[in-house]
């Protein structure tokens, strides 16, 4: 039909090839009159037939889905985030935008797809759902996906490297040292984890993201055998269990009971459940066959290693059980709940108490879940490493050691030896300190003038106190009161006079200069380059993680380099971002990042940059909130202002949701997010209450089988 454009024809260069080859042939779905009118009002004056901007034409009457899914998501994202239309054009109303999005939710669903999948499944797209849709009661429920109660797609979730270790450790009483990452360090053979989490900034462990293929399986098979072999070699009180040694180290032909006991033992340690009747018969026969073939030890190792390759040893199941409710949702099965809670709180397979709860029918209902979750969160002895991991991923300070600093740069900065790991440890300890009190966690983390300083030097400082005193006395000198000298000058990064250091931490820093994690050297370095501050990344971080905004990816055709002018201040070098094309996005980052110019790129406070007075002014704007918008003098003023904001708190809750559910939020998750925020705010800013709320939510406990989208998640 003449004039009937489908997007794949019309989009031209920019978007056509974002459509996966072979998928161009989705059904053509006519856009409603309202959406076409919206595009006509706000888009087609630039993206029409006549020399369309960026080769993109939106004078279309139909969308071809799912083939053009990526392209349409791109268009919808630009609208929801306010990137488009341009600032000087009339802005569409929020309800108008909501109607367009709702139509696309329906179009995608009708086409067997999901608007919130594909590129939008990635953490970097977490903020595409506008904040007020989620946090304004009644708004999301009106139409579209907000109609339905929250649930998460039924899924499997590959265990993360730490959980994988708990599986093998459980089998060998923690005797096998695991080496992380892809390359082992010096030493004996390691049970290397053949997979990791992405190193991308942000929340890392999303359920959709990770798979296991042949290459990893080969390594897992090696690990399984190595785990059992190394475990069997152990002697003494921490030796491998009798169930294993009776079978493997027995000189005689093993009895049926010995084989059965070994199989059950490995199942219970690795999968946290016994074998089913059918599994018991199969695995016992397999072990026996291999014992007969290769002898007791080698046969047992090979046969039992099958359990460590069982899919449930490397994937957590979240499929649910029972009859679906009227919305097609089922609750997680008790063993699935045990794994989910344990993953959420401990990064480990379930402990014996949780497994006992499963066995005894005490993990069946939401109340059961709440009881177990609260018990763990309240127990001062229970480790909850995920709270720290969440805050590490949210703030991103732990990547400081990954930022390369050339030796010559370190030397020129006159900071002595450079210890980025130690700086991360300081911030970790600050986070743990705030978590311990668990009051106004975010506000504290954003504003506290306290800090841990060179906490890594404390153990030796204490251990050698006596020797130090003796040595000083022998020389007739006063014993040193701090560990700092010409080489160790970490205190200077915090602006702490060496004589004010003490082992009892945290220590007060100058509140005019420091306010929370964003002014800690670890965070500042993590958002720096080899030679300078990264004001753009810092601004992007604030826009996304505190204000809930969304910044489009840098067009890859843009040469995103600042001019190489080593004698110019960063603010001046950043003039290039104020060119019209760049400023569309940079206006929402740069003014938020430049206030941190009050620090150098090692985190030291300064008043001068390159011998001239430093300008640390900036601004908050385009938030839609009067109490936030306006100029700021420096980073300390900036973070104090932001820390008071309810919006900022809610954005923090959105990130917590992503961490603990392993996915991005959709409009249907609005009630869950509001409840979580209410739990946080109503309990004096308690992160534990926030987590408890999330872990009893529908999003955490209910699963829905969704149709195949025929669309591979592709990095945006």
């Amino acid at each position, binding site marked *: 039909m003449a004039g009937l454009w489908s997007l794949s024809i019309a989009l031209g260069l920019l978007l056509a090839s974002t459509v996966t080859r072979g998928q161009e042939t989705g059904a053509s779905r006519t856009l409603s009159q309202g959406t076409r009118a919206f595009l006509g009002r706000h888009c087609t004056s630039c993206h029409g037939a006549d020399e369309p901007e960026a080769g993109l034409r939106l004078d279309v009457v139909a969308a071809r889905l799912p083939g053009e899914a990526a392209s349409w998501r791109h268009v919808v994202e630009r609208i929801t985030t306010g990137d488009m239309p341009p600032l000087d054009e009339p802005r569409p109303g929020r309800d108008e935008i909501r109607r367009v999005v709702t139509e696309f939710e329906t179009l995608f669903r009708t086409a067997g797809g999901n608007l919130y999948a594909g590129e939008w499944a990635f953490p970097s797209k977490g903020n595409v759902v506008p904040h007020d849709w989620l946090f304004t009661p009644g708004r999301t429920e009106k139409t579209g996906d907000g109609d339905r109660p929250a649930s998460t*797609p039924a899924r499997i979730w590959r265990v993360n490297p730490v959980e994988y270790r708990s599986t093998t450790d459980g089998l060998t009483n923690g005797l096998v040292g695991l080496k992380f990452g892809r390359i082992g360090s010096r030493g004996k053979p390691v049970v290397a984890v053949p997979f990791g989490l992405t190193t991308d900034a942000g929340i890392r462990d999303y359920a959709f993201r990770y798979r296991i293929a042949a290459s990893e399986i080969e390594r897992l098979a090696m690990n399984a055998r190595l785990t059992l072999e190394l475990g069997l070699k152990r002697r003494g009180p921490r030796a491998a269990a009798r169930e294993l040694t009776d079978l493997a180290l027995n000189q005689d032909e093993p009895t049926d009971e010995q084989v059965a006991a070994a199989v059950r033992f490995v199942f219970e340690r690795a999968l946290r459940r016994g074998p089913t009747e059918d599994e018991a018969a199969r695995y016992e026969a397999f072990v026996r066959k291999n014992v007969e073939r290769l002898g007791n030890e080698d046969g047992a190792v*090979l046969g039992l290693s099958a359990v460590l390759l069982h899919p449930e040893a490397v994937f957590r199941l979240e499929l649910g059980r029972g009859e679906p409710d009227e919305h097609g949702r089922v609750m997680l099965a008790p063993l699935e709940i045990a794994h989910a809670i344990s993953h959420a709180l401990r990064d480990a397979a379930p402990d014996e108490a949780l497994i006992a709860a499963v066995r005894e029918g005490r993990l069946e209902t939401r109340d059961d879940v709440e009881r177990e979750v609260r018990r763990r969160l309240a127990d001062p002895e229970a480790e909850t490493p995920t709270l720290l991991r969440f805050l590490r991923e949210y703030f991103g300070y732990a990547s400081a050691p990954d930022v390369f600093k050339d030796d010559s740069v370190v030397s020129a900065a006159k900071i002595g030896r450079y210890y980025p790991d130690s700086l991360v440890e300081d911030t970790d300890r600050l986070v743990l300190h705030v978590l311990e009190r668990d009051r106004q966690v975010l506000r504290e983390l954003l504003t506290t003038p306290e800090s841990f300083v060179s906490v890594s030097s404390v153990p030796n400082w204490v251990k050698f106190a006596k020797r130090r005193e003796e040595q000083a006395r022998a020389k007739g000198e006063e014993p040193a009161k701090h560990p700092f000298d010409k080489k160790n000058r970490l205190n200077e990064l915090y602006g702490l006079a060496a004589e004010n250091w003490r082992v009892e931490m945290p220590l007060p820093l100058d509140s005019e200069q420091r306010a929370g994690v964003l002014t800690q050297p670890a965070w500042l370095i993590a958002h720096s380059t080899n030679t300078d501050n990264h004001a753009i990344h810092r601004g992007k971080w604030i826009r996304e993680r505190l204000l809930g905004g969304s910044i489009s990816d840098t067009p890859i055709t843009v040469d995103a380099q600042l001019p190489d002018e080593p004698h110019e201040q960063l603010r001046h070098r950043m003039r290039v971002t104020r060119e019209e094309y760049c400023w569309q996005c940079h206006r929402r980052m740069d003014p938020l990042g430049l206030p941190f110019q009050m620090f150098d790129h090692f985190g030291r406070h300064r008043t001068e940059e390159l011998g001239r007075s430093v300008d640390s002014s900036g601004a908050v704007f385009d938030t839609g909130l009067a109490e936030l918008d306006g100029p700021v003098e420096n980073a300390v003023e900036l973070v104090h202002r932001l820390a008071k904001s309810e919006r900022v708190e809610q954005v923090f809750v959105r990130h917590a949701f992503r961490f603990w559910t392993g996915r991005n939020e959709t409009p249907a998750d609005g009630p869950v997010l509001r409840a979580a925020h209410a739990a946080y705010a109503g309990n004096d800013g308690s992160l534990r209450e926030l987590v408890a709320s999330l872990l009893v939510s529908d999003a955490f406990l209910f699963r829905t089988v969704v149709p195949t989208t025929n669309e591979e998640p592709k990095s945006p």
Partner: protein
Amino acid sequence: MTLDRRTLLKGLAGGTLAGPLVWPHLASASPEGADGPRRVVFFLQNHGFCPAHAHPRSIDFPDGKVDEQKEMRKFQDRLDRVVDEPLADHALPRWIDPLEPIKDRVTIVHGLNGKHVAPYHGAPFGALGGFKKSASTPEGETIDCALARRLPAVVPLLAFGWESLPKMRASRVAYASSAWGASLPAPIYCDPMLAFDNLFGVAKAGRAREEFEAETELFDFVGTDARALDARLGGDERRKFAPYVEGLETIARQRRRLQAMTDVLREHAPTVTAKFTEPKFETDWWEAGLDVGLAAMVAGVTNVLTIASGLCTAAGSWEGLGLEHVGHSIGHTNQEEEDDWLVLRRHNMQQLLRVVRRLESIPEGNGSMMDHTLIVYTSCHGETQHSTGDRWPYLLIGDFGGRLRSGRYLHLPLSPHDDSRTTNALYATLLHAAGDERDHFNLDGKRTGLDANGPIELLLA
């Protein structure tokens, strides 16, 4: 690139395509010029490949003593046209002159743009993928894996990683250079003995063979559990789980195909010497790995071999070469002035020459195996340890069964220029030469518009 069950079956398992038993190693291989056997070797050296190392001084260089690196940069910056000259007219620079005797097989390619890979301090997966590097999670398919799909064999891709002995011992298998798709890294052997056992172990008799067979059955056995879970999954989860189900089947199938090749494997198995079992230096294991790789190629076990020297990190070890610099520090030296670089680069070239000579010695069709082989040499770091990747040099050795020009010096103008091309375009060219005439290699999504579609025509014969 994504993987689904069908793709995996088609690509990894070889499907109904001719398997290794019926072609490359047999004298009845297809005649030259037809769609016959083809092989590719990738060699990545970390810490950069300085363009001056691959630039004959007789090409537009001033006379007398000059700072070659600086002159090369000037030459490249001002170049506004394509330089396409026969190498025969020029002497190779000292870093790569071990290739002088086979210069007619060599093509030097300069000027390719790989800035989008961000190779500063190494580009794991990105160097061969043409996408942004990642230490642990590749964004997509790398070129060696793409070619492995095109040139199927029992082991589609065989890769070796070279590092220090302690690191190789600790990580007998690593992940660094290659990937079958997004989040699907391909393993690389660091321990040559492990590679030997996995590939040639079946050729042994008695207990060793019994163990090999028992291990094969392990993957079958677990496959039953995987299929049971697969049947419970719906929607996208089934696709997410497919690589696991298919992976188990693929490994078992691969091992059975090796079992079926016992006689050929026995004939070509490398001799296990002290350099395998009692290495003194890391270079012993490097050589042993190359022995296994070449033997596997000659035996028809694989058609694609990747060597990642330095495992795409900014570290490394060269004790066996007697280098003064260790680990990271070599990357901070001047590649023109530092003698260590001369030793290291020439060692690389000698290894390439070794591959060439070995493959030349095996008759195939009207010529030798080398006549159907292509070697691609570059760095996983781009030009230097701290490079931007805007002028990424490559050496191509071999005409790939007559499909590529050889004996050329080709310098494309740097980006931006109408004639400039990306590293992705080179990889698309290799795919075209292998018969996979796709529009581009990984230039979709956010990389759309970085380069024109199509191969670099000047490289095709």
